[in-house]
């Protein structure tokens, strides 16, 4: 049953565009899905290595801008009169380059902060996000600054011999986001359930002890940062090609806070946590908007967050798991023996 449930959930989510015709709600699903991908990537750092990145939105923004610029083309003059002209490339290559560039930035941030942990890591990431926001705002020649990059083409996939697959409609974008989400989920799941994931958890739990059993903690922190940033960059690329317009506001601190809230309320360090928290905090504004003013929305948002943190300090998913395990399954005598023959 428990092994089946991810597929069951996937089937339910895959069926959404079939019965949901309202474009407004479908739009909410797509943007929430993109935020969930970003939140999942943040969870890899926050939930597994225990490092709080409060600049995580920078990787989303880098992915968004890189992907948009690769597919739009640009013409910039650097200091010293070097001129770079880039002709538009296919959108899928923008997605790849955006993802890889974000991952590369994740590597740099991970390396830069290899000696700093805790509060210092938080400060490094906030500064990084602020610097990227200022670049997007002030390098007008490349990014159009506050005027925003417009007419970003929708995602297209070249299928050799068959033609092109365009993601114009909301339905097709929904499936695109769902597909990327599933890939990101599988990558994160495989990472955290392997010895790599155990090394990350060891770093979070007790760094000296982790080192003493021979774990190169820096290496695994950097690895987590690379994957977290790359997946966030992919989310940014999806965002740019779905909305078709991006401005420096994609680097807003508010988005990082939203992601952190999604991860913590859902349950950090669990695979399903960011999805559950993401659905709640992604759809809450949609639901509340129908009967309350925007100011009231934010108050309700904050109140719900406080309630969740007080009532379920570990998050919704761990609380549910605990409740299920105490009500349904009696503790078995030697389950670890079963684990030994378990091939996931």
């Amino acid at each position, binding site marked *: 049953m428990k092994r089946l449930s991810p597929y069951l959930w996937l089937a339910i989510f895959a069926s959404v565009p079939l019965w949901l015709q309202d474009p407004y709600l479908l739009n909410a699903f797509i943007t929430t899905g993109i935020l969930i991908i970003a939140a999942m990537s943040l969870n890899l750092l926050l939930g597994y290595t225990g490092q709080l990145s409060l600049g995580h939105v920078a990787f989303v923004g880098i992915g968004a801008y890189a992907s948009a610029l690769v597919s739009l083309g640009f013409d910039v003059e650097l200091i010293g009169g070097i001129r770079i002209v880039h002709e538009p490339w296919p959108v899928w290559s923008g997605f790849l380059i955006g993802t890889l560039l974000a991952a590369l930035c994740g590597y740099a941030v991970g390396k830069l902060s290899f000696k700093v942990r805790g509060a210092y890591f938080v400060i490094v990431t906030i500064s990084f996000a602020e610097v990227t926001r200022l670049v997007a705002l002030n390098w007008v020649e490349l990014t159009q600054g506050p005027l925003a990059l417009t007419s970003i083409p929708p995602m297209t996939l070249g299928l050799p011999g068959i033609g092109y697959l365009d993601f114009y409609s909301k339905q097709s974008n929904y499936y695109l986001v769902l597909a990327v989400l599933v890939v990101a989920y599988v990558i994160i799941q*495989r990472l955290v359930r392997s010895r790599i994931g155990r090394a990350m958890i060891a770093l979070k739990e007790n760094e000296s002890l982790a080192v*003493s059993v021979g774990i190169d903690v820096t290496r695994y922190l950097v690895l987590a940062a690379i994957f977290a940033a790359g997946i966030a960059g992919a989310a940014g690329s999806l965002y740019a090609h779905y909305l078709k317009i991006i401005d420096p506001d994609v680097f807003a601190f508010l988005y990082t806070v939203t992601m952190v809230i999604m991860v913590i309320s859902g349950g950090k360090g669990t695979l399903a946590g960011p999805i559950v928290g993401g659905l709640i905090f992604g759809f809450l504004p949609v639901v509340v908007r129908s009967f309350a003013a925007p100011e009231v929305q934010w108050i309700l948002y904050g109140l719900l967050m406080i309630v969740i943190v007080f009532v379920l300090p570990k998050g919704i998913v761990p609380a549910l798991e605990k409740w299920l395990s105490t009500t349904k399954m009696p503790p078995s005598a030697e389950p670890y023996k079963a684990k030994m023959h378990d091939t996931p």
Partner: protein
Amino acid sequence: MSTTDIEAPQPVLSVEQIAVHFGGLVAIADMSFVVNQGEVVSLIGPNGAGKTTAFNVITGFLRPTKGEVRYRGASLSNLKPHEVTSLGLARTFQRTSVFQSVTVFENVMIGLHRRGRSNLLDTLLALPRERKSEAELRQLAYELLEIVGIARRADELAGSLSYGDQRLLGVALALATDPSMLLLDEPVSGMNATETARFMELLNKLHRRGMSILLVEHDVPMVMGVSDRIVVLNYGRIIAEGTPAAIRGNPEVIRAYLGEGASRHASH
């Protein structure tokens, strides 16, 4: 006692003229000693004598001001702690010695990190090597829990174990790195008599398997019982070195440490 070998003892660990200064404070003035293959050596001394500092220097957690530590001929001077571990030198800690919020079994799986043979690509693509490696690790983890005698606690959270069991798990974690030498930092402090006895049994078992062990300990009767040789530290200096019998009779040791220590033990 140790071995009946005719050949000269082989030093595995040699501490050569180590000095550690914290600003103006001299934690270790000048320390040299060796641990031979398969030997149990204890480092004893009053509080603040520099025992844990010596420990941290040997395992790479602390850089000495002067001197060098060699393990099986290789210098440990510029190695990071995780690199020292990969040479076969594993340590336990005085206090926090387990990963509290994961299960006992998962703890040992973490400890087996270096024994895994799958790489990033195997993991991401879920290749057969990943599954094979994981299955091997699970088998090893189970065996290690059997060795230290806490297999029945495998699925409990490490933080919920009794103090003595946490210490045993700490040893399992160190053993998981496949060491040829163990460094134990006050392993029986805070244990009751039964737990200490169990721990000594485990130490003897490891000793019989040929493991070299360096022990830092307060518990004098325990040290006398398990050690081949004892090194006595006081104020960052070695004041005596020898077999338990020789140490017991050494007037300087009695004056500096044992007399005072024995009276303190009696008052408890």
